[in-house]
């Protein structure tokens, strides 16, 4: 029996060798990967052991870590939670953070490289480690005004400072309460999260930077820029003015939104076409310019790229390789042209800024626990998209559009507002997407604003940009100009 016993002993030995091997593999070789797994709540708990830095608006916290007596030590608490949710995002105990909580996680937890020496000195001095605070560029007056003005619409308002690209307001509706997602109870977080995900209006999406819609007529600003910059057109250039237009090589008709011609006369000028926001002249112009020229201009404005503000902005698109009918459609912001509100804010911001596109940015400063600035964000130019003259010309055209054209509901007494409305189709029966983009004061632009209203503003295919989006912009601009 001892021979068999010896063999069984070897088998038992092998079983234990397998266990020694498997524990070594898990604890030594796979340990780093397992710790980096986003589902690993242990790693997350560890990140709670330091006091996470606050997110500040004009020095007042909109997100901060409150000491509590449980395993996590700190409860992330949001002040005015719905208003600032698109900016802060949230950091749940059982999932990935979003918003600035995600984008600046290493700074907020104090683990970024720039905080290395602070960590060392904290180690030496025996202080509790603490994350950096983040001061954002948001103007609380603009944010509140934008939130109030957007009312119950599903959509977004973005206000930027044209000269710097700083984001002064970023509102997304419907909102949600991030505090519900940071409680220290897995089941509650999951229940709240599931309810938000199930909501057909997608409250968790930050529409300002992550919602892509056809820009419709506000894209005419891009086409106008391309036309004027080509040197072959002026605001007085004329186009044929039929009530129905067939692009070359197609039988599908393009109509103006009025259904008739663009004003009286056999021909119509570019300036009138933009003021009244007619589709047919722009379709003709688009075909004449060609899709490459339009795309190049769009890309100078920032289309077909992503940005980090430092959240990642979804890529607005102007597709490549369009044929004439597609180019005609895309010239008034239809076909496959898609844009985020922030992208359209970059368009009007560039016009307001004399033709130079500024990098959009949400973060002003990153502050060490002792309030010294670790990092300060400077205004960054992305490049010149048009000459100052062209910018001035388009500004004048946009001012006309507000004073005496399709964007009349954005008018403010005593201030020249430059603006453009858009009413984009989403298929034959779906509700329209409504837009306004513009800036004020026109002679010394301090605020550029873009309003997006999804889902037809609840009015299906009867609402239009000037009716619903322009008044929102008007209210916000009034509020910020009067402050």
């Amino acid at each position, binding site marked *: *029996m001892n021979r068999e*016993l010896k063999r*069984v002993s070897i088998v038992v030995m092998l079983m*234990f060798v397998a266990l020694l091997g498997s524990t070594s593999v898990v604890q030594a070789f796979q*340990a780093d990967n397992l710790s980096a797994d986003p589902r*690993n*709540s242990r790693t997350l708990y560890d990140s709670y052991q330091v006091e996470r830095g606050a997110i500040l608006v004009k020095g007042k916290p909109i997100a901060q870590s409150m000491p509590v007596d449980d395993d996590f030590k700190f409860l992330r608490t949001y002040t005015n939670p719905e208003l600032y949710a698109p900016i802060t995002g949230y950091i749940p105990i059982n999932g990935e953070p979003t918003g600035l909580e995600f984008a600046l996680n290493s700074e907020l937890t104090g683990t970024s490289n720039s905080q290395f020496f602070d960590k060392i000195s904290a180690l030496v001095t025996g202080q509790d480690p603490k994350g950096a605070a983040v001061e954002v560029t948001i103007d609380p007056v603009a944010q509140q005004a934008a939130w109030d003005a957007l009312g119950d619409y599903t959509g977004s308002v973005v206000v930027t400072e044209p000269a710097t690209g700083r984001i002064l307001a970023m509102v997304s509706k419907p909102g949600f309460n991030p505090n519900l997602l940071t409680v220290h109870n897995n089941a509650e977080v999951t229940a709240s999260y599931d309810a938000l995900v199930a909501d057909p209006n997608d409250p968790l999406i930050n529409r300002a930077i992550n919602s892509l819609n056809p820009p419709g007529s506000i894209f005419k600003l891009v086409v106008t820029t391309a036309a004027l910059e080509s040197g072959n057109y002026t605001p007085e250039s004329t186009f044929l003015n039929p009530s129905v237009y067939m692009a070359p090589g197609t039988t599908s008709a393009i109509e103006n939104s009025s259904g008739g011609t663009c004003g009286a006369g056999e021909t119509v000028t570019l300036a009138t076409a933009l003021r009244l926001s007619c589709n047919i002249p722009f379709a003709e112009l688009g075909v004449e310019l060609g899709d490459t020229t339009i795309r190049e201009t769009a890309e100078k404005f920032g289309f077909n790229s992503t940005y980090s503000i430092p959240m990642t902005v979804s890529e607005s698109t102007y597709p490549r390789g369009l044929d004439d009918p597609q180019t005609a459609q895309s010239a008034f912001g239809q076909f496959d042209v898609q844009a985020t509100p922030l992208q359209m804010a970059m368009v009007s911001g560039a016009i307001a800024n004399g033709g130079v596109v500024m990098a959009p940015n949400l973060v002003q400063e990153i502050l060490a626990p002792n309030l010294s600035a670790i990092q300060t964000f400077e205004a960054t130019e992305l490049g010149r998209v048009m000459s100052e003259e062209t910018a001035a010309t388009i500004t004048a055209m946009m001012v006309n559009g507000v004073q005496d054209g399709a964007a009349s509901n954005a008018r403010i007494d005593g201030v020249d507002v430059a603006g453009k409305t858009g009413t984009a189709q989403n298929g034959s029966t779906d509700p329209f997407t409504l837009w306004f983009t513009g800036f004020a004061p026109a002679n010394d632009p301090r605020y550029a604003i873009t309003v997006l209203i999804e889902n037809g503003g609840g009015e299906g295919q009867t609402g239009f940009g000037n009716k619903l989006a322009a008044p929102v912009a008007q209210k916000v601009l009034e509020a910020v100009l009067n402050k």
Partner: protein
Amino acid sequence: MQSLSKASALSAQPATEPVRRLRLPQKLRNLELFLLLIACFINASAVVLVQLGALGELDPTLVLLGAGLSVLVISLHVVLRFVARDADPFILPIATVLNGIGIAMIYRIDIADQQGGWESAAVRQTVWSALAIFSAIVVLLVIRNHRVLFRYTYIAGLVGVLLLFLPLIPGLGQEISGARVWIRFGSFATFQPGEIAKIALAVFFAGYLVRNRDSLSMVGKKILGARFPRFRDLGPILVVWALSMSVIIFQRDLGTALLYFGLFLVMLYLATGRLSWVIIGMSLFLGGALIASQTLNYVNGRFTNWLDALNPDVYNAKGGSFQLVQGLFGLAKGGLLGTGWGQGRPELTPVPQSDYIIASLGEELGLAGLFAILALYLMFVARGFRIGFAGQDDFGKLLAVGLAFVVALQCFIVIGGVTRVIPLTGLTTPFLAAGGSSLVANWIIAALLLRLSDTVRNQPRLVV
């Protein structure tokens, strides 16, 4: 071998023998006492470290309970001095330190879950440990010679099968997390009779195989160099196979089935020396498991969880790999040296004090700690095998190796499951995991091994 040479040296000096015989074996007991004191010290420091790490202060109640336990194991040691003075000196200290580390970890998880008082798992585990050690003392006092068990071979078999299927009786059985392997006493305690059944079955297998091994090993055709048994001799293995399969189907407990079948197969191989039994048995079990994995959802799920644990779909599925992956996260957090007692977060893993106690220990004691624990198990098993090697009677040899092997296999199934060597199946980690029936069973195994080792050293050596 050493003892053998000593024995012959002793027989060469008949004049001094009576005196030496009285004094020499006490050396073993003294060694045991020394090791036992170290074990108790390790256990006490584990509890103290847990309190310092997780509570930040010292709480004397559990230390007192632990001290009570130390008194019990030392009384077991004293019993050994009288009734089994030649017993193996390593078995008791190893069982003690494993049991103590287990209690410390369960206590540590109680603290994390804010459990306390008599209802807490650690206190229950301590009480069960006392009961288990007491059972071990009773076994040592009642069974003065293991060959008594040989007489009760068939009764043991009957008891084993009955215990195994007790949980299936309506009203008595209790289903916990899918498996129906518990019975309930009133509202207080649940008991897993299958744990005791493994001892009864080991006794039965040993007795049965010693009686019948001739017919199982001698006859049969030779195919490809291995002698295969006659069809009519396949009876026993088919019965045990059917037993295991019914455990899989009716009790939904893969681990237990694997444990019993593996135990039988190893003992059958040891008794007959025929590899063909292993081949037949393995193919029977693998075939059955394969069919079960295709037809039974829970078995199939176990395989998916094992092979594709980190896949988000598997991870999020109901009954998916969430639990397993949480255990892996815990082990990863522990790394090489662990977080230290009371410093990790083992409570994040589901059932951290029973099925996943190895993951909990790996998190706080690290790879180093797990290696130490595995080494302790290996030593425990090796002591059992040593009895098998040195034993004189085949029943004793088979029983000792069977009991030791069942501990080894159980470790392999549960630790291998947690660390993804094999699909995870619910079994308790011997001595460590929370669970009274498991503790009682394993302490009885320890007692039987002590008894067997004493007989092996004590019995007159045959001159063959």
